[in-house]
């Protein structure tokens, strides 16, 4: 027995030595001549397609920043990994802070994973830029002062589409039928939608809660037809939107289909000629804004395809962070938080500048509704969407489409 354990010890010792000699890329042990930024995004799973775009965007930003001198004169060491699921995201975030000495955390698209990373950030007192998560609760009942939210929340998406619909006269007195993803995100979206309908005199005549693993919508589509609404409204997420859109086109219903949530990649996946109606987005590559177009050109040159909206958000977010650090000449958490809470204005390659609202840390920016080009007008598979005018209108206050304190209360725990 003694022999056995000693032999095992020797074996593990040899293994240890051998492995250390290999040298692992992730080991940085806090190199003081670089600034380490931890980035997490889902690369596997149902958000994987979008996550990979997000990663491309943030990497491009890091490269550009490094080429122009980095942050505070030091090069950026970007550690970008697959967050996999909420539990792994939490473990990795912890590791990035503890072992890799990341000064800030960045990323995430899944609201659930974002929530866990927010909690890690709070425990470790580090700033976390939640770039792609849209759940209102993250900025509301689950908020904390270390997290900053860059993407538009559910309420804004509803308002973006809603405003466009109002102008087309598709809201007042009209009958709406909603198809909602039966989980928190979907419920959130539905609540925001209900508020909108109530405020604008629209009728919600039916709502179907659809499980997130549903791939066949025919029973629900039958119910839609039975209800005979004026507008059909989609509150689904991820792949389900694409599937619904395809099957909606398959049945060829007349009722216009609109939706309150869509990622550009999901739209492209629906295929030419299948998508129709009005949808929201935070940004699209056809946006007529010179710095935006320059970004698009650089991205296409480097990656061979146009950036999806999450690539843009990540790109912009990292640039914002860099700007903050350079301006305050610091990477300290408290300094950064104070800087953002001053509601400093940033140029995010849109018509109007954006800023972080101090009581919920939401990035206040414009959003856009979009409609879909008919198939024969598409120049290529990405040339699918027609961006509408920005919401809110240029003369309206930027915050008018964002949830108010009453609607989405947030108590920042210190």
């Amino acid at each position, binding site marked *: *027995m003694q022999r*056995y*354990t000693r032999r*095992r*010890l020797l074996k*593990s010792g040899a293994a*240890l030595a051998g*492995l*250390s000699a290999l040298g*692992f*890329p*992730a*080991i940085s042990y806090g190199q003081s001549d670089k600034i380490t930024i931890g980035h997490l995004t889902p*690369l*596997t799973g149902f958000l994987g397609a979008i996550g*990979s775009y997000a990663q491309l965007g943030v990497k491009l930003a890091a490269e550009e920043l490094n080429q122009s001198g980095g942050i505070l004169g030091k090069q950026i060491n970007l550690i970008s*990994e*697959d967050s*996999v*699921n*909420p*539990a*792994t995201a*939490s*473990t990795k975030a*912890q*590791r990035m802070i*503890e*072992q890799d000495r990341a000064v800030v955390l960045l990323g995430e698209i899944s*609201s*659930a994973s974002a*929530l*866990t990373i927010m*909690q890690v950030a709070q*425990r470790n007192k580090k700033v976390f830029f939640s770039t792609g998560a849209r*759940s209102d*609760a993250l900025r509301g009942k*689950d908020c904390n002062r270390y997290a900053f939210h860059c993407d538009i929340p559910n309420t804004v998406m509803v308002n973006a589409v809603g405003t466009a619909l109002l102008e087309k006269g598709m809201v007042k007195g009209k009958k709406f039928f909603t198809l909602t993803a*039966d*989980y*928190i*995100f979907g*419920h959130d979206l539905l609540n925001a939608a209900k508020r909108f309908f109530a405020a604008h005199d629209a009728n919600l005549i039916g709502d179907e809660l659809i*499980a*997130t*693993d549903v791939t066949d919508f025919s029973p629900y589509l039958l119910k839609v037809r039975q209800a005979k609404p004026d507008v059909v409204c989609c509150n689904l997420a991820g792949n389900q939107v694409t599937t619904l859109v395809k099957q909606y086109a398959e049945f060829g219903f007349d009722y216009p289909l609109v939706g309150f949530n869509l990622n550009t990649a999901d739209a492209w996946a629906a295929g030419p000629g299948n998508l129709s109606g009005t949808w929201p987005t935070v940004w699209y590559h056809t946006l007529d804004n010179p710095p935006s177009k320059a970004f698009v050109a650089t991205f296409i040159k480097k990656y061979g395809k146009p950036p999806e909206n999450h690539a843009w958000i990540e790109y912009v977010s990292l640039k914002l962070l860099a700007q903050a650090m350079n301006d305050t000449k610091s990477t300290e958490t408290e300094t950064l938080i104070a800087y953002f809470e001053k509601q400093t204005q940033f140029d995010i390659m849109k018509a109007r500048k954006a800023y972080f609202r101090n009581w919920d840390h939401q990035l206040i920016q414009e959003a856009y509704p979009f409609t879909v080009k008919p198939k024969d007008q598409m120049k290529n598979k990405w040339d699918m969407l027609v961006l509408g005018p920005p919401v809110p209108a240029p003369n309206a206050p930027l915050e008018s489409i964002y949830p108010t304190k009453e609607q989405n209360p947030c108590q920042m725990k210190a």
Partner: protein
Amino acid sequence: MTTSMGAKVRPLLLATLALVALPFLLRALGLSLDTGIWAVALAVAAMGLNLCIGYTGLVSFGHSTWFGIGAYAAGLIQLHWFPNQIWLPLALSMLVVAASSFIVGIIILRRRGVYFSLLTLALAALSYTTAFRWSALTGGEDGLGGLKRGSIGTISLDNAVAYYTVVAVIGLAALYFLLRLTRSPFGHVLVAIRENQLRASFQGYPVERYKLAVFVISAVVTGLAGALVAFQNYLVSAEAVSVPFAGELLAMVVIGGMRSMLGPALGALFFVVFRELFSIWTSNWLLWFGLTFVAFVMYSPDGLVGIWHKLMRRFRPLPEEAAAMSKRKIYDGLPLPAFLRPDSLEGTVLEVTGVSKHFGGIRAVNDAGIKVAAGEIHALIGPNGAGKTTLFNLISGLYTPDQGTIRLQRRDIHGIGPDAICHQGLARSFQITNLFRGLTIYENLRLSLQARRPMRFNIWRDIDSFAEIHAETAELMKFLGLEGIERIEAGALSYGGQRLVDLGIALGSKPQVLLLDEPLAGLAAAERERVSNLVKNIAANIPVLIVEHDIDRVLGFSQNVTVMNQGEVLMTACPQAVRADVRVQEIYTGKGIPAVEHQRIDAVAGEADPLLRFDRVNTFYGKSHVLNDATLDVREGEIVALLGRNGAGKSTLLKTIAGLVPAASGSIEFQGKDIARCRRRKSRGTASAMCPRAAACSPA
């Protein structure tokens, strides 16, 4: 035969060492202590799962359900009732898991094998859907957040080192519990169930209760791991109950090695480290993991531990079997050990009356009756298909009779299930050897001796501490003539030895009446003599009902004979009367030759060359030497009839010709060509068309 102290303590020592070394190993790999906590918790979960898979043979695809329920329960209990504490939530969550797994287990353990596994798969899918959608309770997709780790005295468990220590200690405690469990009587019965569930139930074990118990215990251990992870992440998310996670747990068990206690722990470590490391380097880590998993299943199903053992055997080969067998000591003529002798029996011990059973349209047994009296050897004879084994199966509880009664010592025992019947005092051996092949001879017998004692449900005490049972096992082995070869696996024994063990298993149940189903079948002459003497010795104290085809021998030592034919009892009388009875002779050798339409012309037949030559062929079924230098010629135009007693080898000869069973030596020639070597090819098929007994034809 006891296990050394070293071997018992080794897993615990190894585990402690590994737990101490782990943080340093992780550091060297660039991973955090969080990963280590994950690994330890998953190791506990995997070991819990392995209790079902490796030890009991219940393959569960749904253990993620218990992991999740443990996590959610702990989280909810903390959030609603005991904020800032983790000890009570941990303890109470285990109770919740126990209760829910008990209810679910009762439902799904009614099915076995693949159906059971598929039910667990459905369970996992169902619980994921529920966790995701019942967001009021579980937090849905966002999960149940805001959990706290609490503290011990002044040490906050938010500190990674502190929590790691807590998890490591709990892990060691769980390991200790599992080790004690597997060394206990209960644990040994689990292995018996895995090896041969049927025989275990005939030994008197209420197998269903054991399966339910292990299912619940396994679920609780996995649930505990789930709760620990919940507090580690300060969150429970639905991923914990997903089907992919259940698959990952299974992968850990398989890759680590399901035949050892620590194997799954190793598999868990492998998985966690693999995932962490590879997902840093490449987003294709799951591909590599999948390939590794497939490679393990295909080439090393015993996992990493299996590979380790194979390597070890290179350096320290197992002792030679022949040498081990030579240690056998045979004592002849020993009386039945005292503890096996039932309290004095009188009169009719076993009474079977008017028993009938039909299967579909076939009446296997019709209105059969037998009485076995104290001190008697009662023979049951009859041609094939007479219903003898079916009657045995009815008496011993494998089937329930449609009609009739079966009484043991005036107690009704029909329809109560084999394990209950065994407890009533009836044991049987099997026609086709029915042992625990992978277990040692010693263990095979010890299980029988343990089965009727209350301690068979004990989950804590080491079996080595039950000295009485060990003494009894030793004495039984000596009686059977198996002393000295205790550690040999039953499957490695000679055929004769296996038949002895089969008999011994039945005997070990301390029966008041013993049913022996062809105990002499396939034995060589010397062994037949020994076993017959053994039976006579036994019968001095325990009445025996014996089915045998060695008519001469069995009529020689039995006091009473019952003859069955076509499911009915023809007569019951003393051996001489039976031997002399015309009806009995008729059913064995037929009533005469019916007129044949076309007469064969002898002259022509004698000259033709043999079409089929069967020359000195030897055939084995496993250990049993069935055809012994068999020789046969069949000429063109001939009809050759093969006659002989049961077990003479007639069917085997036909099967050897047809190629269903390979001939070990000798030649088979058809039309001059040697067909002994080609198996089931078309040419051979056209050479012989075989029409088997009616029962073997397909409905198509």
